[in-house]
Each structure stands twice: as structure tokens, then as C-alpha cells.
């Protein structure tokens, strides 16, 4: 199923959607959004690309096997949980925050890193499943 319109459109849509997913991820702490839904949107962007260009192409674009994203995201989440334990000695998963907000992003804290971890895991999981199934047995 090769459609030139879809192919051209996804070439521009992919970066836009990815940007949007990051936007959703970052605003999650104050407005509707968050790592989970952001990850899903990012995954949808890749899936759209996959439909237009084929799995192999999307894989090449991604560079790594999506399966590798899962441990990366999981470790990031766990590390953000352990960060207060290491840095300030507070219990696991206590939220710690920088005191001054950054422009655009806002206040940065361990919860943000946790959410980024969730985002990465969700992208990894969704793409692993979808790639695997679309490649077939």
C-alpha cells in the first residue's frame, strides 16, 4: 500500500507529532497530559510513518530496536525514584525539586524525570508490539 500523499504527509507529520508529544509530556504536571499519553502519541506518530513507508524504513529512522527503549525508560524512572535516597537521604520516590523554574519547561523535579521514563517505556512497548506484529511470524 504505497500512497504518495500519505508518504509526503507523514514526512512532515512525524516531527510535528513528536514535538507535540513532548509538549504533552512536559505540560503534564500542570495541564492535561503526561508521560503516558505523550508516549502513546509519539508511538502513533511512528506507526503512521510505518503505514506510509513500511516497517523497515521506520526501523531505520528510529536507529535502535524499540525494545531497547524499555530498559532505558525503566532505569530512568527507577533512578529518579532513588535520586532522593541518594541526594538527600529521603525515602524512595520522595519528590525533590530545583528551586528555580526554567523558562518554557517550568519547575524541574524528580517527578519530571520519572514521567520521561514512563514516556520512553510506553514508546518502547507500543512500538515493540506493533513492529513485531506487523512483521509477522
Amino acid at each position, binding site marked *: 500500500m504505497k500512497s504518495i500523499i500519505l508518504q509526503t504527509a507523514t514526512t512532515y507529520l512525524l516531527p510535528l507529532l513528536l514535538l507535540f508529544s513532548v509538549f*504533552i509530556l512536559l505540560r*503534564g*504536571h*500542570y*495541564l*492535561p*497530559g*503526561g*508521560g*503516558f*499519553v505523550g508516549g*502513546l*502519541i509519539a*508511538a*502513533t506518530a511512528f*506507526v503512521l510513518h510505518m503505514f506510509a513507508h513500511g516497517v523497515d524504513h521506520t526501523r531505520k529512522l528510529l536507529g535502535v530496536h524499540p*525494545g531497547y527503549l*524499555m*530498559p532505558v*525508560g*525503566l532505569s530512568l*524512572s*527507577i533512578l529518579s*525514584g532513588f535520586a532522593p535516597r541518594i541526594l538527600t537521604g529521603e525515602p*524512595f*520516590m520522595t*519528590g525533590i*525539586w530545583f528551586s528555580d523554574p526554567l523558562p518554557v519547561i517550568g*519547575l524541574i*523535579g524528580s*517527578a519530571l524525570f*520519572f*514521567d520521561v*521514563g*514512563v514516556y520512553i*517505556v*510506553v514508546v*518502547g*512497548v*507500543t512500538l*515493540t*508490539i*506493533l513492529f*513485531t*506484529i*506487523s*512483521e*509477522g*511470524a
Partner: protein
Amino acid sequence: MLIAVLSGFVFALALVVLGKYIKGRAAVISALLPAGIFAYFCSFIPAIAGGERIFQSFSWIPSLGVDLNFHLDGLALIFVLMISGIGTLVFAYTSAYLKEDKHLDRFYGYLAMFMAAMLGLVLADNVVSIFVFWELTSITSFFLIGYKNEDKASRRAALIALVVTGIGGMLLFAGLLLMGSAAGTYSLREMIESGIDFREHGHYVLILFFIMGGAFTKSAQFPFHFWLPGAMKAPTPVSTYLHSATMVKAGVYILIRLSPALGEHPFWNDTLMIVGGITMIYAALQTLFHTDLKGVLAYSTISALGILVFLIGIGSRAAMLAALVFLLVHALYKATLFLVTGVIDHGTGTRDLTRLRGLGKLMLPVAAAGILAAISNAGIPPSFGFVGKDLIYESTLATESLATWLTFAAIATNVLLLYAGFVAGVRPFLGKLPQDMGHVHLPGPLLWAPPLLLGLLCVVFGIFPGLIEMAFAKPALASLGFETGNVHLKLWHGFNTVLILSAVTIGLGVLLYLSLKPSHALEKQIQRLNFFAPLSLSLQFASAFQGFSLYWTRFFQNGYLRYYVIVIMGFLVILTGYNVLTEVEFAIPENAFADVTFYETVVLAIMVTSIGFAVFTRSRLLAVSAMGVMGYTICLIFVFYSAPDLAMTQFAIDTLTVILFVLVLYRLPKYLKLSDLRSRLRDGLMAIVFGALITVLALEVLSEPINRETSNFYAENAYTLAKGKNVVNVILVDFRGIDTLVEITVLAIAAIGVFGLLKLRLRKSEIE
């Protein structure tokens, strides 16, 4: 003390990396570890002998009241020195015994972990840490017994040992927890010192049942003894270590340790005496019928354990003293005999008693060790065994009502044990050497020195029993709460009943040894009775249980998704539905439909239409799309009720689900035939009932008054505590962050599962 206990684990861990350097000649270096521990604990002897008790506390899980407290008293000291002392010899001996083995580093790792677990067990004060160490000994001994993992019998023996001792561990834990809750403390020392009378406690019988279950399985008491002879499949150093000084003595240790708290009650004393008595006689009789050297030693070990339990059962001071001394006597001579067996096996390649004769000329130091051990085992003066046996007779004679019977049982056991000891320690070295054993020669000193050293100790302690009395016997008795003023261990008691009994025992034993030869014919006869031995009965039970679980699993895990769903739904409907029918009054609020908006009506209409499509269409693709439409309408409802987070997520999920379905359906053939009418009706009925149930539940939830405590907490604290304004997200990443962590882990596992299922290609050789 913490370092001393944990060094074994550290050593095992270090071997993972450094293991390759410790193979071959360097292996003997590893004996420095137990030697160091031995020396360290030896330094406590003067303090302990002076009546001190050493208590060291390390916080572990303070929130659960679990601490790593080590408590070194006289009793613990005996065990610690046995474990590390015999451990040193076993470590050194192994380096020669398993010289050729390619996994020697692994073996040392198991051995070191096992030693550390045993040390922890006898030193620990907190009952939870006792349980942890207890289980660690079971697990590490599993690896040791099954060390020759290419041998099926070896694996099976290891599994049986693990199952039996593992079940025992659970029982023990239950007993210790019951004791803890009765006493209000989980420290063993406080439990015993607080003076709580467990005998008056309502759960006393239950506590006894659990504790004894743990101790009897570990210490191989009848009818749980069968794992021990099986465990002889292990390499001989393992048998030496596990069965002379450590593993099997753990149960005895627990019984001795708890006897001040639980003892002096008819239930305790009688049970222990009966079980111990049966075990010691039954196992001693078994030794007559075996021709395998290690088989004989295995049953004589069980018998010795029986004697120990029996003595603890008598419970008087004399009996406890006898138990403590016999503990040491047995550890020394049994370790010697096992090590001697190992040398013989190593040199000749057989353990068949009918073939082993006349080896004394070829391996003199080994023969000396074996004969010394046999003498101590027989209780012939001036060996340490003589002191031990005298004490046993003294304690049985001193009992009030049953003196004759108990003494008779003890004599019978000792006569049979003497036979076993002579068969194992003397017989192989005397007589005429078979012709095919001319090549046998004396092995290196690492193999013969350890047994010879232990054999010599058997006699040294016999000649100087004062050493034991000062260093161990008195402090250990004191730690059990007995007066120790007039305790004296000595070799010569003068002419009295005990001496006559000893002489009778020795006479009868030697007579038995001279008149009975181990033979295969006898072994065959006893094997005919095996069909109702505890081992075969439990194996039959195990296989019946396996058959039942197979049937059970096949019935429920039949591999058809539809049946899984039906079972789950049916169960839920029956359980919840019953409750709903009996207790809920159906009431739809009167003005329920008053404020339904136009948008909601439209969405509802779309929803119903799409459901109809999904059910009645003949195309899979259409059904999936209809389901997708359904999902989107639900998103809309979320939007109406101002749940944007949910709506966004649902929208994304639904999109991906439809894509997923399409990808899968793409590969399936077109509908060839719909399911038949019957199964469609069945599925429809199930769906309607389930849907109705959910509806009723939803209505019911609405009519309940809403408890806003939780949601208010989150709403109020989201910004102040977690600096976020989106409460949903704050809950996800902060308040309930661990939930989310677990969820993404589950997601990752699911993805790996999908990947594995679809991508796994077995090579032909891997398909069984």
C-alpha cells in the same frame, strides 16, 4: 560478628569473578576463610567460659522489628566452632578430593554460603532472621547435594531434600511467629528471659507441632528421615559437612535452644522421646542391611540424631549434658568416618563393603583415623565416645518411671551403632586385600591429614575431658538455665552400673560385628519391604499430586481464550450477582433522565449503532472499526464530564488498538464460517448478563454517598506537596508513583512476551 557471618556470602560472590584463580592447587587457600572464622570465635572461648554472653546488634529492617542480632553464648559457641572447625578441614580436603573438577570454584561458593548460613542460624537472635538463615541452609544444601547435576539420581535426591526441609522451614516459621506473637517480642533471648509461660498459652500444642515439624524434617527424624540417605549422592565432603556437624544438627540446635521455653511439659518430653527413640532404633537396625559404606554412615547418622532428640526429650540436666557432649562426640567421629570413606572411594572407586578389605596395609594413616573414630563411636575407653556414652546411660538411668525401658533402648541403639562404626571404620582396613586393588596407594596429605586430625581429637578429648567441660559443656548448660556447679566430665567413674552397661554394650557390639557380615543378600531382603517405607509412600503421594495438578491445569488452562473469558466472567457474575440480588434494591433515580443533553443522546445513539454493527457484521474489519467508533464515543463522554486526561489517553489507546487489530486481522483468512448458533447464543447470553451486572453495579455506586476524603486530599495537596496543578498526573508520577513504576514494568514484560511469542525460533535441536 556480622563480618564473620557474612564473609561466607562475600567470598561466594567474589568467586564469581575470581573463581578461575582458585581452581587447581590454589584451591586449598580457600580453607583460610573458615580457619579465620574458627580462630576468631576461639578468641571468645575464655569470655564465654567465664560466664559472659556476647550480644551484637545490627539494624536490618527496623520497621518490621527484624534485626540482625547475634547472640553468642555457650550453646552457640559449640555449634559455631563445630561449623567453622570441621568446615576448615572440609574446605582443605575438598581441594584434593575434587581436584579434577571443572566447577570447583562453584562448589566452594556453595560451601561458603552454606557455612555462612549455618553460622547465622546458630548465632541469630531474632526469629525472622533465624528463619531466613534456616531457609538459606536448605537452599544452599540443595545445590551441594545436587552438585553432580548431570546425574539424575543426584538431582532427585537434592529435590527431595529441598522439599522435605523446605516444608519444615515453613512449619518452623509458623511456630516461631506464634511464639513471637504470644511473647510480644521476636527476640529469642527476650522470649526466654521474659519468663512467659508458653505451656499455659492457648496455642502451646500448635507451637509444638510447628516447631517440631521444622526440627524433625531438618534433623531427619522418623518418618522424615528418608531425604538423608538420598543426600548421600552428594560428593563426600558435602556429606561430611552436612551430616556430621551442620545441616542435620540445625534441628537439634533449635530444639535445644527452645527447650528452656517450651520444655518440661508432657507433650514436649513424650513426643521427643518417642520420635527420637523410634528414629534411633529404626535407623540403627537399618545399618545392618546396607553394603554401601555411605549408606551405613547415613543411617547411623540418623540414629545418632535420634539419640540427640531422645536426650532432649528426657530434658533433665544430665540428659542435656549428655546431648551436648554426644553432639561433639558424634560430630568428631562421624566427620572422620565420612572423610575416611571419601579417601577409600577416591582411591578404590568403590564403596561396596563386601569388596573393601585389607586396605590398612596400603593407607596406614587413613586406617588409623578410621579405627580411632570407630573406637570413639563404640565408646571404648579412653575415647571421647566413652565419656559421651556414659552420660547417656546416666541420664536414662536417672529417669523416674521408664528407666529400664529407656536404658534398654539406648543400649540396643549403641550396640547397633558400634556395629555400624566398626563396619565403616575398621572392616575395610583388615582382612585380605582383593587382588584387583593392588594399584591402590596412599593419597596426598590433604586427603588423609584431616580425618587423622579429627580421629586423634576423638581420643584427646577422651583423655582430657576437662577441656570440653570448661570451654563448652558448662557455658552451654548455663545458657540453657541449668546450674553448673557440680558438673564434671571424666573418663573414669569407678565401678558402677554405668560401667557394666558400657561393658555389656561393647561386648554385644563386638559379638555382632564378628558374627554378621554385610552382604547383598541381606540388603535385598530389606528392600522387599520398601513398598511401605516413608520414602516410597511420599513419592507415591507426590506423583498422585502431580497427576491431579496436571488434570486441574489442563481443565482450566485449556488454551482457548473464549473459555478463559467465560470462566472469569461467570465467576464474577455468580459471586457478585448473588450479593447484588440479595442485598441491593434496584432504584433508578426518578429524575435520572431529566438533564440528559442533546450531545449525550447523539453519542449514545452512535454507540448503540456501532455495537449493533460490531455484533452483526460479517466482516472482521468492519467489526473492529465499529469497536473503534465505540471507543471514540467513550472518549467523548469523558470530555463531556470534564476528564480531559482520560479522554486523551483513551483516544490514543483506541487508535493504537484498532491498528493492532487490523495488523493481526490482515494476516487471517477471510471469514469462512461464523461460529454456530449455539455458541453465539452462549456468548451473547454471557455478554448480556455481564453487561447487566456492570450496569447494576454502576447504578449502585452512584446511589452510595460519595466519600470525598481521598480525592480532596489529592486535590488539596497536589500543589503544596508535589508542586503540580494537574492532579491526575501528580497522582500518577508522585503520590502513587510506585504503582506507575510497577505498571510500566508490567507493560515492558508484556511487550517482551509478545516479542518472544512471535519472534522465537527454536533451532531443531531445541525442540523436544
